[in-house]
């Protein structure tokens, strides 16, 4: 019996360990923020939204196709009234979880002049990209986006201009980001 439990633990532990969690300190940040966006869209919510999007309307059909590959979308965004409301340790709490071998950091931008930083990580399983995390830190704004599932940035780019979504294009191969204005 002990062996069976141990086997279950070995199977389940990596799956649990791979899940990127928002640190507890984010709850305190929400109290400091003047504006907070907290979105937790699990697969059932995404399915519900996908079902509502029309397959006949071209724009909605693109959004539907994009959403169909996603298993979860989690967004935490804080806007503060003044600078210095969040600490570097808040960001490190997430970055440290992304040191696992399946996560590949594709973009790392640091701007001392503007006090901004952006990190983009992709989760790779073989050739497939099965997740993405964006950490964007500005002096008075902190945003973390976690997407589980297959996200096609080209499809996201095709939605540009619709639903208030800006144009974004991802080039294949070198993973360089190429975007166009709104």
């Amino acid at each position, binding site marked *: 019996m002990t062996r069976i439990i141990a086997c279950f633990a070995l199977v389940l532990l990596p799956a649990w360990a791979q899940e990127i969690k928002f640190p507890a300190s984010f709850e305190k940040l929400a109290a400091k923020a003047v504006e907070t966006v907290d979105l937790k869209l699990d697969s059932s919510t995404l399915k519900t*939204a996908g079902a*509502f999007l029309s397959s006949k309307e071209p724009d909605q059909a693109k959004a539907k196709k994009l959403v169909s590959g996603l298993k979860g*979308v989690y967004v935490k965004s804080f806007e503060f009234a003044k600078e210095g409301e969040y600490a570097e340790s808040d960001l490190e709490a997430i970055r440290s979880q992304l040191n696992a071998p399946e996560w590949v950091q594709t973009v790392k931008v640091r701007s001392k002049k503007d006090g901004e930083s952006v990190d983009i990580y992709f989760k790779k399983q073989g050739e497939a990209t099965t997740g993405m995390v*964006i950490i964007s830190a500005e002096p008075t704004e902190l945003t973390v*986006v976690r997407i589980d599932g297959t996200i096609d940035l080209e499809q996201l780019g095709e939605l540009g201009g619709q639903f*208030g979504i800006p144009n974004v294009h991802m080039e294949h191969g070198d993973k360089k980001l190429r975007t166009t204005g709104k």
Partner: protein
Amino acid sequence: MSRLDDELRQALRPAAPSDGFAERVLARAAARQPNAVRRPGLRWVAAAAAILALFVVWLDREHDRKVATESAKEQVVLALRITAEKLQLVREKVQQVNQ
């Protein structure tokens, strides 16, 4: 044989009903008639009320479903918008570095 005939004749001989038998039968028939008419009516009312109740419940659930679906769609669009905005920010930063 004649004895059997006599016994049968005796048993099946016509007998007059007791006094007031016909009045009692008519009185009972008259008393039951209104109920016989009312009961099917009540059944229809009960059935209509049940159907109406089911329709109201269905409408309520349908409304909740539409609200939930609309909310889910708005949340998905907001999430995609934030994602795209952050990707655009990266693009701007990369362009600044390249310049």
